[in-house]
């Protein structure tokens, strides 16, 4: 007579997020992001020679053959931008979720014991004391330039935000009547967190995730600007902007190309965070 319960629930949850993508902001944000991901995945098709195919055509302006022109080593800037986008996406789409998971666990650790909660909060306070970029510089200095350094820098930079949000959620949720009801029934702490607290703090955490994606893009770019980004010749949007800025006056397309893509990427996550936020409020 009735549909299997779990399937139905999942549908409802999905429906809620689907609603986020029904607003204009959601559509534009998700559409842009999807397009960027497709482009990034299609990088080998756009530049079959890879991102480091050098020619002697140095700093040619934008043309039909090279939409964004070529860089100082005669490489097609469009191809490099697409591969750079790949780098950025691979970074933020791995680092931010990892940060989300660790941060959330840290935030929720207060449920296990008060002392543990206080301890992790102090830890997060200390991390929060270091602005994202400074943290990045330190990490790059320790483990050396490259993808992994950026990865860890982003993971660390995200922890305080996620951790605090999860803790705030825990504190406000754990005194809700339905959580208390579960406690009175004798439901274990782990189950209470999984069933009652986590699902109810997912919304703000998701919004924060989308917001932090933008921050992560900026941190990557910022580190590249001070010369600590991904290792050349591999491109990232930030690293390209860093080099491109040196040719900004004579070859604006060098900055504008990757700059626009960076802007689009950041914009898509901003719009997504808005859409998710709206859907969460409307719930």
């Amino acid at each position, binding site marked *: 007579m009735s549909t299997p319960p779990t399937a139905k629930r999942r549908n409802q949850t999905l429906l809620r997020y689907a609603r986020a993508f029904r607003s204009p902001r959601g559509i534009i944000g998700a559409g842009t992001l999807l397009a960027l991901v497709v482009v990034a995945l299609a990088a080998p098709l756009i530049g079959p020679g890879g991102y480091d195919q050098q020619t002697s055509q140095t700093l040619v302006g934008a043309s039909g053959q090279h939409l964004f022109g070529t860089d100082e080593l005669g490489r097609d800037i469009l191809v490099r931008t697409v591969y750079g986008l790949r780098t950025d996406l691979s970074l933020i789409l791995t680092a931010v979720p990892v940060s989300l998971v660790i941060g959330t666990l840290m935030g929720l650790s207060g449920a296990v014991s008060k002392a543990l909660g206080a301890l992790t909060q102090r830890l997060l306070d200390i991390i*929060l*004391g270091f602005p994202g*970029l400074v943290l990045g510089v330190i990490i790059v200095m320790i483990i050396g330039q490259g993808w992994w350094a950026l990865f860890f820098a982003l993971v660390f930079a995200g922890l305080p935000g996620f951790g605090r949000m999860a803790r705030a959620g825990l504190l406000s949720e754990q005194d809700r009547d339905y959580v208390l009801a579960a406690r009175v029934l004798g439901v274990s702490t782990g189950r209470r967190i999984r069933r009652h607290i986590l699902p109810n703090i997912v919304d703000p955490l998701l919004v924060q995730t989308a917001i932090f994606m933008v921050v992560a893009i900026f941190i990557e770019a910022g580190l590249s600007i001070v010369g600590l980004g991904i290792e050349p010749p591999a491109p990232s949007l930030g690293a390209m902007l860093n080099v491109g800025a040196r040719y900004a006056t004579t070859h604006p397309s060098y900055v504008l190309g990757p700059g626009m893509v960076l802007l689009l990427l950041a914009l898509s996550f901003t719009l997504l965070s808005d859409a998710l936020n709206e859907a969460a409020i409307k719930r």
Partner: protein
Amino acid sequence: MIRFLVRRLPVIALVLVAASMIAFLLPRLMPGDPAAAVAGPDATPEQITQVRHDLGLDRPVVEQYVVWIKGLFTGDLGQSLQYRRPVAELVGTRLESTVELAIAALIFMVIIGVGIGLIAGSTRAAWLRSAIDSVNTLLLAMPGFLVGLLMVLLFGIYFRVLPTSGEVPLSENPEIGVQYLILPALALALAPASGIARLVQTSMRAVRQQDFVDLAMAKGVPPRRIATRHVLRNSLGPALVAIGIRFGDLLAGAVVIEAIFARNGLGQLAVSSAQTADYPVVQVLIVGAVLIAVAAQLLTEIGLARLDPRVRLE
């Protein structure tokens, strides 16, 4: 308030001690040798050893830490390895530049953020709201250095109305100094300002739903006065918290903005010191950054208490 500060002291001290240890240890974990950096590109191992001894870098780490901490309490922040100058002096000469930039950016951030938020949060014109919304979204997605680069291109080359390079300390010539500050401060402030505008706007929207706004209306208070006296004041809390948190980012952002606008501030010092493994400078700057973040947090809490009499400082 004193009681509040005293109550906070243990936590602050804990954070600072941890920060000082991290600040001391982390640079030393970095590969690279400040002595090698000091000795120059063609140096021989002997030259480097000699330099290391001269700088006291061959002493045990714990001893170096204790010496440094002792120094901190007597006001001696240590000696820069690269410049052979007291760190305090190095920081001192660049402090004004960064402080001016940060404060100017803070002012822009607050004025623009709260101003736009107020307009968007109180206007009834849907087109204006969505226009502000779009601009906000765009600015939010635009990192400071991109804004800075665009400004340098626009103002440095095409519309030369404001200087894009260098600085004049306000203490020297306020009139000229301000002109040098405007563009970099704007570049630094625009993105966070749009974030704040957004917060103000959403919290104004939430506050508008509250009964006391209706009560004010029922009293016959005109809409304008409702927006400023009743709604805005109650909406500033989240914005203030964000400003407190963003202040640290503002300082970090200064690193990039200083490079673009050719300002010699602490950001530039931090980058060059990190690159040459100038530990004494790096560690002081890190502790300073943490100190500022902590201070910003305290100020935020005090500010919140000022804004909202319900908040008690404990």
